[in-house]
Structures are given as structure tokens and as C-alpha cells.
């Protein structure tokens, strides 16, 4: 079923050069059909890694659009170029030493350029994940780290926001800082985990684990088949 002769063909323009490719491909597979072998600009091929940021325009339209090559259908008359790398600076920090109790704006301290945000919302419009990017920049400005972390959670760090920003904000690095602060300092911690880690330190399960390690397949099968399943979490 690999090939259908009667498949409808469309025309795409890769960095200005025209190619005919079958309909029904993603931008990524359309480029491969056209003969390109990826080294850069191709990663997980499943929408999780942000490697395949693509800038495009459709024939007859003046607008530049942005999306992921692996998650977007190739359309007739697309002019395409991919972004192999984003040269964005990132603030270094020591996660153990961020004192958010005594410092009311860690975010501004690490990324002072967020104060230059002109609320143009270009970052939000550029985001292939439909994240409210400008909103999390504004939340960071107000010191609302929890909100910035939540709003940015689906970020795949493709960098399209930062490439388009007139204020040169590095949104995705800023968001990473917010999420790490939330995970480390804002979210309450698990007491169940603490208890288990303590029990393990005391060697509570060592003997039983050792016993399992020494069991024959026959013995293991018996215990395994008699397992009781937890009904609800």
C-alpha cells in the first residue's frame, strides 16, 4: 500500500525552491520526500522536543506563520524554512541557593529584560503549543512564579517566542526557572515518599528483596500469579 499512483500532488517551496510532493504528508516528511536528509531541525518527530521549528508563509498571504514540521500537514503553496538553532542566553543559578522567601523577585533578578516587555503578544502568537507566553512573562514580572510555572508547563523549548520578541526576552529559559522554583520550593512535599526513603535507609525491605532475587522461576510464578491488585488509588 506504500504508493498510490493516483495520489494528489501539491507544490511546496523549500527555501524558495519548488518541489512536487504527495498530499497527506507533514512538513517534515514532505521535505524528506523532496530529497532532504535531516541532520539538524529533526528530533523526536512526535511533537515533544522542539527541534523542528518551521517558519512559513502561504501563497498569496503576507503573514509569517510558525509551527512544528513534524506536527503540521504540508499544504499546497507553502514557502518553508526551518530554524536549526536559537542563540538565546540563559541565566545560571544554583537551585539549592535560590531564596524565594527573602527575595521577592527572583525572576526579575535572573532575567531583568522581562521588564522590557511591551505586551505585544507576538510570543503567544508564535507558540506552536498555544501557550499564553506573554501572560507568563507578565506573571513573572509580578513575582507570581506559581502561575508562570503552570502557564508554561507544556513548553517544548523550541525558541520561536524568543526569536520573534522585540524586547529580546528569553521566554523559554525564564519559564524553566519558574517551573524549577515551583517544583522545588512552592509545591508541598510528599510525606509518604519521605517515610519510604527513611525505611529504605533502615534496610526495611532488603531481606525480602534478597529472598525474591534468590527464588526459582517456579517459586516466583506462584507468588506472581497470587498477587492481589489494588482496586483504587
Amino acid at each position, binding site marked *: 500500500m506504500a504508493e498510490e499512483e493516483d495520489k494528489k500532488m501539491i507544490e511546496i517551496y523549500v527555501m524558495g525552491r519548488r518541489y512536487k510532493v504527495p498530499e497527506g504528508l507533514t512538513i517534515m516528511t514532505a521535505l524528506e*520526500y523532496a530529497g532532504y536528509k535531516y541532520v539538524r531541525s529533526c528530533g*523526536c518527530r512526535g511533537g515533544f522536543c522542539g527541534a523542528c521549528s518551521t517558519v512559513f508563509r502561504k501563497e498569496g498571504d503576507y503573514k509569517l506563520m510558525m509551527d512544528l514540521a513534524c506536527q503540521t500537514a504540508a499544504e499546497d503553496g507553502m514557502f518553508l524554512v526551518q530554524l536549526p538553532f536559537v542563540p538565546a542566553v540563559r541565566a545560571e543559578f544554583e537551585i539549592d541557593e535560590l531564596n524565594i522567601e527573602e527575595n521577592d523577585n527572583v525572576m526579575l533578578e535572573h532575567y531583568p529584560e522581562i521588564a522590557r516587555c511591551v505586551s505585544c503578544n507576538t510570543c503567544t502568537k508564535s507558540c506552536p503549543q498555544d501557550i499564553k507566553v506573554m501572560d507568563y512573562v507578565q506573571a513573572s514580572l509580578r513575582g507570581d512564579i506559581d502561575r508562570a510555572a503552570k502557564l508554561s508547563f507544556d513548553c517544548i523549548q523550541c525558541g520561536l517566542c524568543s526569536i520573534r520578541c522585540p524586547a529580546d526576552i528569553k521566554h523559554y529559559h525564564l519559564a524553566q526557572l519558574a517551573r524549577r522554583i515551583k517544583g522545588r520550593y512552592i509545591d508541598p512535599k510528599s510525606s509518604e515518599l519521605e517515610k519510604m526513603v527513611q525505611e529504605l535507609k533502615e534496610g526495611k525491605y532488603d531481606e525480602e528483596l534478597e529472598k525474591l532475587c534468590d527464588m526459582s522461576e517456579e517459586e516466583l510464578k506462584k507468588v506472581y500469579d497470587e498477587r492481589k491488585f489494588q482496586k483504587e488509588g
Partner: protein
Amino acid sequence: MSDGYPEYMRKSIEKVEATREKRASIDFERMKPEESQETLDNFHPDYRKEGKHELKVGPSKGELAPIELAELLESPSIIDPSEIDLSQVDYDVEILIVGGGGAGTVAALWAIKEGIDPKDILIATKLRHGDSNSMMAQGGIQAADKEVDSPVTHYLDAIGGGHYTNQPDLLKALTRDAPEIIKWHEKLGIMYDRDENGEFVELPGGGTSRYRLHSAGDYTGMELMRVLMDESRNKGVPVLEFAPAVELLTDEKGNVGGALLMNLETNEYYVVRAKSTIMATGGFGRLHVQSYPTSNHYGATADGLIMGYRVGIPLRDMDSVQYHPTGAAFPDQVIGLLVTEKVRSLGGQPVNADGELFVNPLEPRDVEAAAIIRECYGKEKGITTPTGMRGVWLDSPLIDFKEGEGTVAKRLPAMVRQYERFNIDMTKDPILVFPTLHYQNGGLVINADSSTPVDGLFAAGEVSGGVHGKNRLMGNSLLDFNVFGRRAGITAAKHARRSQKPTKLTLDHLSKYNKELKDAGIERKNPSPMLLPEYRGKRVLERHLDVQVTL
């Protein structure tokens, strides 16, 4: 209602809708051991002898491996040893880490904790730092930390799921280290899903007898990977991107002393000398074993298996390949992409063309996959797409039906987004699925401290074998790369501290391996490692599926 489905598929969806309420309360009986064995024998691609090849050379001579892998193992190297100048060392480091995914990055962080200066480490990776299957893992990470659970139960679930073939000391390490790993993640600031008291929201996975999966929405792997990378950057670990290792380097005694890298953009070689080398290159999904589509990353081409095998590391459990029960089967653009097991953890059911539930949604992965193939090719109750791909429905709207509207959108944002891009609303309509090549169960033989049988070489993550035996359970691979990445980093650091720099670097093992190939009369034409898969031209149209069932 979404408009992404053609009319005839919508007719079948109506049948799924008609049975939904009734199915919601069915607790489908799990297969008895005999039935699951029979289903595997007849329908699981791994149980087809024709797909396997007996290795003719190397440390695992006589053992079976998928043909696609065997062809690469039994091929000459992409480099000619006589043309490589090893006298000039470009990078002289304590620890070389080959692969910048989960295992490699974790190893770097723990080597630093063990006292190695970050600048004496080098991560060399084929694509970008973080480009890996680790990044794509959606469902979660297992760790027994609840009152009703323990590492003992976790061990039992995993060894049964693995058909009692797991290496016991590795599995003990995996389950016992798990809670400490989550504790470490808390300190790094990983945002796990928690309740208002800070306790983790945990789910069951296929074959787990407890609610044990920790997750971060359905972006669990991405959340882990981006934090690990961020921390690695804070520590200043040098990373060489687009510079894969193409072969390991050995000293006069045959011990590993670094690797030869290739700059993918300039085609230059770089010689790296290292006291300890950690192999963390991941798996082999992009070999499309048995012509299956894959959920794997672009770079998953078995490079580490090839390089490790050539220096003398045996492989184990290579005869078993994990097909994830639910890869996307429609629309064409997403064929093979992962539909996380979490859809079933949350209550979604696999349903046939007539709207019937035909298997317990949470059997171990190999059994679940075999049952779906049986439904499509044995019982002819699948749905065929306009381009000929068969699949069954995964009733995702059932989750909202059971757990309340908005649950799917809240708990599975990545999945919802993926389908939305192609005009399918999985909160309202079911999605079509078929097994996809997902994980390399076996790999390079390692010890519990991540050392290998060859001095100077360590291995962690998907490239290594033994942890999962012949079938991995959901949530144990994110755990694997953390547990064994950590152990590899620590062991490699200790090894580096007590070792001298190798005095002479050679490719003697390659010449030896080439001679073995010649003596065995093998002349293959697929030089390896492969580095990148070939999809140019019409190959990209191949849906890579020609299911053979033994009835």
C-alpha cells in the same frame, strides 16, 4: 464531534458510543497464563521465528537477534581503521559520555556529585543535548512510595511482566533506588502531579498491581529531561552536539579508552581520550524491526549496541522487542506515534469495530499488543483506514464519562493537542490505534554498578539489557535511566579516579572484528553504525507495516 474521520469510520464510532455506558462498568477478566501464552505465540511479532537471525560472529555468537539488527552487527564499520590518525588527541577527559539523553545527563550530574570537575566530563551526542526517547516518554515513572506498596511488590510486578528473565541484581537496584530518585527529583524541582497535601497522584500501569506511576501530565519525560538538561547547564558540563561516537577506542590491553567522534556537519573526526567511557546511546526503534512503524526518536538507530558489541560486550535478550500496544493508526501523518498507556491507566478501553471490549485494558504490554493484533488480523474485527492501515478504537471519551468532563483535557494535554492538529477531538471521539515498535528490551550486558565486562566501559539506559528481561513494564524506563545513569556516573567517577590515562589509543578491536567477519564468510553491505535512518524520497511514504501472523 470532530470532522477528521471519514463517514464509514464514523459509523463504527457510533457503535463504540452505543456500548460505552454498558462497558464503563465492565471489569474485563485478565488472561490466564495459558491464554496469554497462546496469544503471544500466535500474534506477537516477536514470536515469529522468521524475523530472527542467529548471530555468526562476536561475543553473543549463536544467539538470536532481529534481522534488521543482525545485519548491522554483522557489517563492517563505517570507518576504515587504516585511514584514521589517532595520534592527535582532540579531547582529553576523565569521563566521556556517549549520548546526551536521559541516562547520559543523569550520569554527568552524579559524576560531579562524586567529585569529578564538570570540565573534565564530555557529553558527545548525535543530535542536540536532550534529543532522545527519554524526552518523549509520556505516561510516567514507577516508584513504590505509598503505604500499600513497596519495592518488593514493584520487583514482583516487573519480573512477572518480564517473564522471569530479568537479571535479579539489576531489578533489585531498579526498585530499591526508585524512591530515592524521586526524592532527588523533588530537590531538582521537577513538577510531579500532586494532591493538595503534596502527595503524588499515582496511577496503575499495564501489569502493575499497585497505583505506582508518578507523572507530570502526559509530558513526564519532557519535564524530567528539560530539568536534567537545565541542571547540567548550571553545572557547566561541556556538550558536543551533532558529534556522535562512531567507534570506541581501545588501549593495548583491549580496555576502552575513549571514542572516535564524527562532526556530522563537517565530517571531521575527533579523538577523545577518557579514563572512563559511558555508553548511553539509547535504543533501536528506527531500525523498524519487522517493518513496524515506531514511536522512537529520529536518532534511535542502535549505534551503542554496535560499538559495544565490537569491543566485546555480549548482548542479552535481543530476541525480544517491545511493541507498544497503542501507536496511532490514523490519520496517516501520525502513524506510529505513541498514544500513552496513561489513556488506559485513566480508564480508556480498546474496543473493536463493533464496539466490543475484547481485552483487559491493562495487561502487560506484550499481551495487550498481541490481543490488539489478534483482533485486527485473527478475528478481522479491526477498522481499516483509507490507506489500508488496520487498528482498533481506543475509547478515550470513556475517561470523561467515568471521571467527569474535562479529565482528558486536564490529564492528557499532549495527546489532545496532537489529535487536535489533525481535526480529531479525542475528548469526544475515540482514536484509532495499532501496536508500534517502542522499546529495545535487551541490550549490552551490565553489572549492578553499570560496569560492563570490558574495563573502562560503562553503560546505562535503553542501550543496556537485563533490567527488564524480555518485556518492560510502563514507567520503568524513565526509572531505568535515572537509576542506572546515576550508578554509571558514580562508578565511572570512581574508576577514573583510580586509573591512569590510556597511553596508546587503537582501533585494533575493529581489525579483529573485521577478520572474524571475513573468516565467517560474511560480506554485508550495510556499514554501521547507521547514525541516521534513511527516509528520503518514496521511502517516506512506506507505512512500514506488513503484519505476518502465524495462525
